[in-house]
């Protein structure tokens, strides 16, 4: 599970490069992090709100892309967390 922002394109590129089986994107998220507050008005001003990206994949894939995603997030801000999940 990842929280990101305008770097959505970069993140998706990273995901694609790691050959994840799929991902889901939910835009229009707002929030607050240690560095920034993201509000709804940032959507019509050009700033862009947050995007919430969910990826279900194997542990090894996560390891593969960890560094790249960290790089992306350290640049623009955002958080990524991992939970265990089993397919239904």
């Amino acid at each position: 599970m990842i929280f990101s922002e305008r770097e959505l394109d970069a993140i998706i590129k990273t995901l694609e490069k790691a050959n994840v089986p799929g991902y889901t994107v939910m835009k229009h998220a707002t929030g607050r992090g240690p560095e920034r507050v993201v509000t709804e008005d940032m959507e019509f001003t050009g700033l862009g709100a947050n995007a919430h990206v969910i990826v279900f994949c194997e542990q090894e894939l996560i390891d593969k892309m960890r560094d790249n995603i960290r790089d992306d997030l350290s640049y623009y801000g955002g958080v990524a967390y991992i939970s265990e999940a089993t397919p239904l």
Partner: protein
Amino acid sequence: MEINPILQNVLAPPVLFFLIGAISVLFKSDLEIPAPLPKLFSLYLLLAIGFKGGIEIQKSGFTDQVLPTLSAAILMSLVIPLIGFLILRFKFDVFNSAAIAAAYGSISAVTFISAESFLESQKIAFDGFMVGALALMESPAIIVGLLLVKFAAPKNRPKSRKMHLSSILHESLLNGSVYLLLSSLIVGFLTASSNPSGIEKMEPFTGQLFYGAECFFLLDMGIVAAQRLPRLKNAGSFLIGFAILMPLFNAFIGVFVARFLSLGPGNALLFVVLCASASYLAVPAAMRMTVPEAKSSYYISTTLGLTFPFNIVLGIPIYMSLVNTIIPFSPL
């Protein structure tokens, strides 16, 4: 004589709706214009401003005044960020200073159209080519801001954040709102020159609807500005002062430049308003992408929470009286 135009300005529907929005936040009403509706109006306004501006430019042609005025406009949008940067550096680091300075060098299209509405209600003429100035002042300020970051930033900036000229140009010219305004201008120009019947058919959408859509958008801007205002407290009194005094200062330079260009009172006001207004669309978008070190709450809360309301409500009539005072015998 000073109070009257201010009151008249305040009693126009766009400003009234702006105040309604702001008051709703003050009184904690749950009035809300949910995303992405504000974006709809923002896109519409840019498209309509550009389209109408392109038509006007085609119609008025390139008179003697056009080239000097546009050049002066570009010059102002290059100089203002430099001055702003020097002032801001007293308190802020390079990143924040450059980002805020760029915002004040650039323009706010909605402030511009508010000034146009003011002129219309005062029956003062102005020229269509001023929209060209509007369009041309957006990008240079962004370029200056990013160049300032490129050359003044501490040397230990991580490699991934090194800026290349190509990306600076990309951010300043292909930014969504800059691009839409510029390209709609071109569409308007082309339509006027080759397809005049198209103008008529667009008129209900880009012309007649405009004023009402402006009101609706300003209602939302009132809400946003009032929500932004309290966050300025954290920014400190220096920035609060900057957000009011910098527009006044820029207006002051602008009015002398306008006098030098011997602009009529209408064009002069628009020129001054362009100098005095600050960007909350194009510049913040570009800065958030390329200068993540700058705090977006600084450059957006000042422009949106303070400078924009100040210009809309008080600034425009003040600038008008400034124009009337400083530019003598303003010719029509």
